[in-house]
């Protein structure tokens, strides 16, 4: 009988150590619960952001408070909305713990999952921009047909001037001659006070970069022969800008 008791004592020690290891490595039940509550907050943030984006698309302005978006004030419980500017806002929430460390798979490198995996304990804000939603503004009655311009050699330094026609939309297609992997653009207009000018760079039918004037943009993975479309959009019908230029700063 003694040997059986010894066996059970040895087994119990082993099992106890394993359970202890499991608690240490997997986190205590309180930590796990906190993480689950934080994930619920993340889900709330993720579901609120598209609603605000839709509000912007519909009303052409960001809401002042979340109550403008939601009919019921209880819907935004736990979330704080901060309007940072005409085209940006933050959604803040209180987190009970830091985001768990996670090894990202290649599919996560689009930045979406990383954005929601870097929160810290306490109050943390997620920044959003609705600048890309400008594209879905009502289309002007007459849109100039995009005419491919002579190839724009982006491998050269310098300012490339684009046609000025005073219309709300100017679309220019350029074909890359060089084979740069990365292009850096800075956008500028002569009218420095015109904050309503939005310049969008479209590549392969996707918006790859956009910004207001004088904001540096960085675009990766360009290759020779790639076609890019540069579109300017003046909001609220203003057409008093004069010109814009795109400068390749990669060299």
């Amino acid at each position: 009988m003694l040997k059986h008791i010894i066996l059970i004592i040895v087994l119990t020690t082993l099992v106890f150590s394993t359970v202890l290891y499991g608690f240490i490595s997997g986190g205590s039940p309180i930590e796990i619960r906190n993480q689950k509550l934080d994930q619920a907050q993340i889900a709330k943030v993720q579901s609120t952001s598209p609603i605000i984006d839709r509000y912007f698309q519909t009303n052409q302005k960001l809401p002042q408070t979340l109550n403008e978006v939601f009919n019921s004030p209880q819907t935004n419980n736990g979330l704080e909305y901060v309007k940072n500017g005409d085209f940006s806002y933050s959604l803040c929430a209180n987190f009970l713990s830091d985001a768990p460390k996670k090894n990202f798979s290649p599919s996560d490198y689009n930045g979406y999952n990383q954005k929601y995996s870097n929160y810290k304990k306490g109050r943390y804000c997620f920044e959003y921009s609705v600048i890309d939603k400008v594209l879905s503004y009502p289309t002007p009655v007459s849109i100039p047909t995009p005419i491919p311009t002579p190839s724009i050699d982006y491998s050269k330094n310098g300012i490339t001037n684009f046609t000025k026609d005073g219309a709300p939309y100017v679309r220019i297609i350029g074909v890359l001659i060089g084979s740069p992997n990365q292009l850096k653009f800075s956008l500028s207009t002569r009218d420095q006070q015109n904050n309503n000018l939005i310049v969008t760079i479209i590549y392969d039918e996707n918006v790859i970069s956009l910004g207001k004037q004088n904001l540096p943009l960085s675009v990766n993975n360009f290759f020779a022969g790639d076609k890019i479309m540069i579109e300017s959009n003046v909001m609220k019908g203003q057409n008093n800008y004069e010109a814009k230029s795109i400068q390749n700063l990669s060299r």
Partner: protein
Amino acid sequence: MPTSELEMSSSQATQFPPIPKTNFSMWITFQYVVEFITLYVWATAFGGIIHYAIDKNFPDLLKNTTYTSLIGSYIMPGYLSALIVSYPIFAFLYLILKKQEGQNSEIKNIKIRKILIYFTLVIAFIILISQLISGVFSFLNGSASLNSFMHILATILIVGSIFLCFLFSVREDRKVNA
């Protein structure tokens, strides 16, 4: 002595009384079944935690670590709860039944006990053989690593201990019955 009396006495000498058969209650059968079920549960959970620890501390470059850690983080609480619940029941029943076997060796001849022991031996043997085959296969396949070696070692240690334990038990039973 008359012949008839002699015949009578010889026939009486050869008529042994029937060996008394001990009838054990179903309660002992139930205890054995529960003991073996809890053994399977806690051994699986114990092995699961050890495999998780191996993946965490000796990661394999060929494995998707994200997937492994994700699976581990979901299953780990399950393993822990299975271990916490099933192990005490097993330990308690193991000691109770061993005590009863010591007091009455006839208990060792209960059919369900033998069936469960041999069933466990067969299953353990199949797992051991399959682990050894997969070890040799991964070596020949070029996917052998410290991680896979540790996994095989852990399984062999856990299942091998159970296998040896019951093998000795069977041998002891045979000695007693002989």
